[in-house]
């Protein structure tokens, strides 16, 4: 197992390198001179030239690239010109906010989506099943920005229950913090929640008619335990895959949700940086998000092993007699 993890960590390096190359190329291909955009339309030609030189953008592309990679290897993500801060600090400022939003959305999605899927599968073709199936189908195809705006209109503007923008800090009290969190979390949770419900339902349906589920019932085990212990653990693998992908993308920052609610997370940072052509920030954050994806991926692969004892990474000791 340990060996496997080390191997996987080493394998991450080429993945991240490829991402670094792609991000580098894309940021250079965005139309518009970054220096000119950053300085605004009033800037003189001399000023733009000076900034171009400071940014190193006048050097040949391959030199720029090696500078960039060289800095990365020393742990230097570069400095943002618009924020006047090292990228690493900027990410560390914003990332916790994204984590808060992601975790609360994830909790909502799991707490509602998974039980809904289980109940739906155990009562196949009932009204309850049709309700869950319909709602979750609407949920996965819901345009997030529309949902967010509707929630704001109704709950903030009409009812005034929740603030429409921003993030409450803990200093203002736990209640304020939660009030700010609810609408963005709900918005962000909708798609993963629906997806979890659908995946749970379909993989549970495959499992509940298996012989070992019948065996469990024939032992006199309570139906709740039959479903939650015997069936669910077997149905968990596909759910784990989807959860992994969702967790990565939630941690990478919810661009739409953060924009609607002005939530100061990674998503808002990227959008802001793209608008301001702060390519250093774009490079750094995208690379960081890629890192999140590969790490979550690794964790998910390790969890597969926990869920399914047939997967054996450390040795190929097969079945005995």
């Amino acid at each position, binding site marked *: 197992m340990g060996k496997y993890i080390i191997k996987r960590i080493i394998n991450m390096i080429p993945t991240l390198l490829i991402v670094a190359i792609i991000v580098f190329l894309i940021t250079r291909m965005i139309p518009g001179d970054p220096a000119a955009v950053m300085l605004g339309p009033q800037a003189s030609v001399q000023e733009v030239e000076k900034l171009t030189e400071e940014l190193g953008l006048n050097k040949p592309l391959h030199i720029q690239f090696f500078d960039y990679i060289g800095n990365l290897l020393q742990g230097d993500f570069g400095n943002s010109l618009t924020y006047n801060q090292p990228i690493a600090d900027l990410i560390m400022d914003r990332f916790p906010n994204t984590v808060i939003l992601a975790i609360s959305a994830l909790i909502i999605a799991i707490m509602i989506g998974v039980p809904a899927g289980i109940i739906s599968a155990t009562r196949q073709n009932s009204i309850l099943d049709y309700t869950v199936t319909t709602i979750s189908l609407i949920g996965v195809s819901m345009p997030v920005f529309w949902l967010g705006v509707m929630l704001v209109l109704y709950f903030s503007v009409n009812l005034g229950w929740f603030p429409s923008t921003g993030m409450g800090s803990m200093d203002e009290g736990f209640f304020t913090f939660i009030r700010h969190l609810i609408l963005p979390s709900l918005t962000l949770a909708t798609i993963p929640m629906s997806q979890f419900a659908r995946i749970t339902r379909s993989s549970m349906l495959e499992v509940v008619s298996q012989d070992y589920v*019948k065996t469990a019932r024939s032992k006199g085990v309570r139906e709740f335990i039959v479903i939650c212990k015997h069936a669910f653990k077997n149905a968990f693998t596909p759910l784990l895959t989807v959860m992994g992908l969702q967790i990565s993308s939630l941690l990478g920052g919810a661009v739409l949700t953060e924009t609607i609610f002005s939530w100061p997370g990674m998503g808002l940072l990227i959008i802001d940086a793209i608008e301001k052509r702060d390519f250093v920030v774009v490079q750094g954050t995208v690379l960081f998000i890629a890192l999140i994806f590969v790490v979550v991926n690794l964790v998910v692969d390790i969890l597969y092993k926990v869920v399914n004892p047939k997967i054996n990474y450390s040795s190929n000791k097969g079945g005995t007699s």
Partner: protein
Amino acid sequence: MPEELLRVENLQVEFRSGLTTTKAVNGVSFTLNKKENIGIVGESGSGKSVTATSLLRLIPEPPGIISDGNIFFEEKDLLKLSKKEMRAIRGNEISMIFQDPSTSLNPVYTVGNQIIESIRTHEKISKKEAKQKAIKMLELVGIPSPEKRINMYPHEFSGGMRQRVMIAIALACNPKLLIADEPTTALDVTVQAQILDLMKNLQDEFNTAIIMITHDLGVVWETCDKVLVMYAGNVVESGTVEQIHDNPMHPYTWGLLDSQITESVNNDEPLPTIPGSPPDLSQEVRGCPFAARCPFAQDICFSKKPEMVETEDNHYVSCHFQTKDKRLDRKEQQNDRAIVKG
């Protein structure tokens, strides 16, 4: 005087989906005494498994439903018990093992976990005690080094070993009745014999009655006291093993006997089979369900369902032409077949 353990009366089980109703079990009755073994035989699809699972009320509902009949287990009417009372019976007083040991154990839990679960569902004992008992059970079913094996997962066991584990689970709470639904069908021939031996030995030790479902009459001759021959959801013949073996009455039973592999069969000759296939259970059959395939069928067989008739002591058969004063000649059928082949 043998003590009665189980009495099934006119059991009817249906599967309803949309407009079709499949009558999987259509009036099965039998009794089983303590420590007795009954074999249920018949082609696949004849309703053996549905009968067996209905006894534990484990058919999937919906689409299944036990539409009529009674199941008396000792003094209890199983069809009237609450869910909770029924759970107290499952795995405790009546256990079941299934055909395919590669799918009947949960792949994500150790075998120990699965045996202990069964024990602790019915007995209020500590985990540690339950584990000791589980190890003892594994030892009893012939699993080597049970202390180590108890922590292994089902995929680390062979088919025969897995079936032994299933038997350990089934017998862990010392049930009065064990239902074995084709317990050896999925196993190698040599392993089959070992499992049957094991079941016989354990039966002596645990004093369990067994319902042995099989389509292999050889298994019945070896292990059972009584036989129930099922066809299309009906019992067509029942009696003691001796009666069915020495004096089979129903043409369907003859067909089953003739299609068994025996040592005397000439290897060059293909095994005879019963021509045709079982009827569609979702269609109402007016006459004898076997009529369409029966070489002796007359008009009456297609229009009137035959009654169960006792032809000798406890030997019942449902055939218009097998009564105390009317007898079919089995030779005739065999001669017919010889002519067809010739």
